[in-house]
């Protein structure tokens, strides 16, 4: 009989790194952002990732859930993850406060092909918490601004209260180097915003596809219509990028749960171009 | 079992329903399988013999619109129970009853032929003739009937819109039917505990028993898998498996129509139907009730009496 210290032999991809919650931001009534720092200082210093990659957050005793690393790799004070309360794991995450210990398995998955986007104009189309992965790339691009052409953001939510990252939105609204078009499904108390569903607003804005890459994320129904509208506006499938969600467990393409055909959303994704999704025969 | 009569009935019924659920040939002669007919051309593929073991009524809740279903006596009780619980609408189901003298236990047949692959099988009156590469074996049907059939009280379907055959008298009556349970109950507590722990040890939590059960309704909230409430873990230990099986059996109290599908479906040959039969025996003795017999019955677990005739109130000394 022999005991094996697994981490000594092969890196254990199931073992999370311990991390501490250093910030909690109430984004909306059901979305919170958590800022965490890995307990191992060396690991935190060496930590690197690409915009679009995700992490599995553990509340030990409850379980794990997948979230995009919501802060950009250009700002490594902490790692931010935005969590919408939906099930057991996310409810447990919402109970966390400063100083609490969680587990982090990151970075996982692929990332936005930003290198291929350099020199081009970027169009972000987001809805609700779909702004989470887009925010990573937006901040990253703002931090490396000269690498990209015009940046336009069309973002909407159900109501004023459901808009995520209100501080960022305010900041982006003031900046001259990006264009922010904000919308809500229905206006509610607060400074009046343009009204309309995101796909409808997209059609009203009618951006030209030339030199552009479109990146979209949001509720499945929104993505479905946004993809349709982008195609009608003339965007090529290879120039339309989205990021998908699924029920995940292992996060490393082994447990068989998040696959579309032979591709795993956790490993070959979550970032996919529309061209790739069509090849995979993915149904929205 | 009268296949020709059945085909005749199906021919008349098919135009008025969206689907007829019956049996067709499977991968060998001992394994006919459920089939879902939607056109007259498929009628000739129907089979009907003592190897038609499946409880086709189990498919009813998932079928939309109007369906006709071929049921044996035990299966017909399921139709009654499903209708009583509102899981199906009686008016949407055409019941094609098949009086049945018993179905075979494939396990018993395989044991009798030393687990040889079956090339052919035919039923001649009280004999099952099985052909394998090694030759022919003639088996007395009675020796290879499913255990549930040996104590069958309802060989003729308890309700039917059409009957494919003559009524059959039951071989057993009430009390005798549960003698095997009483014999088992007579064993000591330690013996019984050891028995069940040994049986559940080989359970693989595949839930074939649960999914084959026509009356299992918890679906996504199944205690074996849900974490809300979180009563069981996913550990494959004897305790966990015992807990799942006990809870599953208790959920069927006053509802199990003894179709035996749970035990037949189990790939590991665990006698899970015994648990349900035990609970049914208790229901019969405590409440004089048998599930799935009459549409007008009021299931005792759904009713409340301040004074129960056969339950002694807990006396505090």
């Amino acid at each position, binding site marked *: *009989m*022999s005991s*094996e*210290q*697994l981490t000594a*032999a*092969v890196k*254990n*991809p*199931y*073992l*999370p790194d*311990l991390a501490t919650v250093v910030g909690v931001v109430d984004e909306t009534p059901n979305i919170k952002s958590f800022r965490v720092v890995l307990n191992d200082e060396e690991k935190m210093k060496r930590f690197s990732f690409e915009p679009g990659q995700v992490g599995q957050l*553990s509340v*030990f*005793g409850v379980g794990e859930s997948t979230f995009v690393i919501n802060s950009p790799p250009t700002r490594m004070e902490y790692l931010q993850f935005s969590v919408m309360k*939906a099930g*057991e794991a*996310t409810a447990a995450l919402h109970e966390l406060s400063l*100083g*609490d*210990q969680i*587990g982090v398995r990151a970075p996982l998955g692929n990332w936005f092909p930003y290198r291929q986007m350099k020199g081009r104009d970027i169009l972000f189309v987001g809805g609700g918490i779909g702004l989470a992965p887009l925010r990573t790339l937006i901040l990253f691009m703002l931090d490396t601004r000269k690498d990209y052409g015009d940046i336009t953001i069309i973002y909407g939510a159900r109501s004023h209260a459901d808009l995520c990252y209100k501080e960022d939105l305010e900041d982006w609204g003031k900046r001259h180097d990006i264009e922010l078009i904000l919308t809500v499904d229905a206006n509610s108390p607060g400074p009046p915003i343009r009204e309309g569903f995101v796909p409808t607003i997209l059609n009203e804005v009618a951006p030209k596809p030339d030199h552009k890459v479109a990146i979209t994320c949001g509720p499945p129904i929104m993505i479905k219509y946004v993809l349709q509208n982008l195609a009608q506006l003339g965007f090529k499938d290879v120039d339309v990028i989205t990021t998908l969600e*699924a*029920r995940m*467990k*292992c996060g490393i393409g*082994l*447990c068989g749960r*998040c696959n579309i*055909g*032979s591709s795993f959303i956790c490993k070959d994704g979550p970032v996919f171009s529309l061209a790739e999704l069509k090849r995979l025969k993915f149904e929205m | 079992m009268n296949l020709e009569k059945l085909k005749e009935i199906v021919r008349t019924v098919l135009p008025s329903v969206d689907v007829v659920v019956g049996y067709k040939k499977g*991968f*060998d002669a001992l394994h006919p*399988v459920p089939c879902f007919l939607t056109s007259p051309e498929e009628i000739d593929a129907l089979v009907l013999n003592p190897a038609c073991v*499946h409880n086709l009524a189990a498919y009813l809740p998932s079928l939309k619109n109007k369906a006709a279903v071929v049921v044996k006596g035990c299966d017909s009780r399921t139709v009654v129970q499903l209708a009583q619980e509102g899981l199906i609408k009686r008016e949407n189901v055409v019941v094609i009853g098949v009086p049945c003298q018993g179905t075979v236990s494939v*396990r018993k047949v*395989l*044991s009798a032929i030393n*687990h040889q*692959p079956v090339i052919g099988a035919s039923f001649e009156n009280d004999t099952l003739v099985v052909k394998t590469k090694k030759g022919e074996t003639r088996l007395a049907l009675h020796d290879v009937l499913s255990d549930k059939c040996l104590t069958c009280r309802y060989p003729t379907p308890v309700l039917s819109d059409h009957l494919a055959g003559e009524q059959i008298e039951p071989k057993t009556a009430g009390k005798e039917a549960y003698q095997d349970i009483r014999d088992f109950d007579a064993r000591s507590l330690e013996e019984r505990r050891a028995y069940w722990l040994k049986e559940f040890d*080989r359970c*693989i*939590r*595949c*839930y*074939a028993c649960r*999914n*084959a059960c026509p009356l299992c309704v918890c*679906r996504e909230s199944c205690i074996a*898998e849900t974490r809300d409430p979180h009563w069981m*873990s*996913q*550990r*494959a230990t004897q305790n966990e498996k015992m807990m799942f099986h006990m809870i599953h059996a208790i959920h069927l109290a006053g509802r199990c129509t003894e179709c035996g*599908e749970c035990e037949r*479906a189990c*790939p*590991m*040959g665990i006698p899970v139907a015994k648990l349900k039969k035990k609970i049914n025996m208790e229901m019969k003795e405590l409440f004089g009730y048998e599930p799935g017999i009459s549409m007008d019955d009021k299931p005792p677990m759904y009713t409340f009496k301040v004074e129960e005739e056969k339950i002694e109130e807990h006396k505090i000394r």
Partner: protein
Amino acid sequence: MKKARYLKKQKEKEFIAALGAKARVYAPCLEDEAVLFKPAEPDSTICLSRPAVSSPKSVIYPQSETLFSFRFKKDAEDKRRTLVELDDTIEVPDTIIFGARPCDARGIAIIDRAFSKTDTPDPYYLARREKTTIVTLTCPEPSSGCFCTWVGCGPAETSNSDVMMTEVEDGYLMEALTEKGEALLESPILEDGTPYEAQAREAQKAAHERMVKEAGETDTTPVDPETFDSQAFWEKAAERCLGCGACTYLCPTCYCFNITDETVVDKGERIRSWDACMFHHFTLEASGHNPRAAKALRLKNRIGHKFLYYGEKYDGIIACSGCGRCIRGCPVSMEISTIASALKKNSGTVSGEQ
């Protein structure tokens, strides 16, 4: 390779007991009417005359195992804080699977590949796999539902086995295929196998021919994309399926799993357990959305994984060993062979299909 050895039938128990002195030996044991891979005890009845109901994959890939345990402790310097400690130590005993069949060994090979040919290999599986020696029995007769040659395996297939056992006169020829196998055959209980080699070759050839007669040669026809994408095809194929996990759990090549946490007061474990893509809730998201809610889609995914997706990742290999357990064990006798054949638009017959 060293010379072949011979195990007299009468010495089978003695040999297994001797193996058991240095390792945990799993063998097909008769329990009531079922043959199951269990630890071989002195009072076990070893049954090699028919395949076990389930595969021995559980020996290397247990149905449930602890990935790591965690402990909650109060921070000594700040009692308001709770700290966590993780421990991923596992026990990995030397193990022998005695009396596997080539379909079992092939199944293990399929899982080996998935868990090792990745940039995040699974250390739990690999640690156990390394300590496991596989002794495979040449399958003399096809069982009902078997179709191993059709998928590129066969009753005398030696790949991924350490020792090949073939029934000969009064015993078994034991041939070492790897170093592990050689080590295992170094036993005074075994005799020289040379006199039995010719017999064994005959038996292996005959076994293969019998299987080919039953199920056909390896079929390399690709899956027809139009049939594969047809909703109507899968709805018909899945109509009687119950959506349980019997096929998945009996299958030598299935390896989907779940990860759940269990806690009692201040300590707990993260558990990995078998799961089945056939279950309705397998892909159910917290929002309520379920990409594979329909039975037809789940069946398509399981069969698609075996006959298409796995091959897309790994050199066209079919992740099915044709053992027929799913067919025999399925409560409604679903036939993966018939469905796969229809997917390839074959006019040929496979095992029992008319």
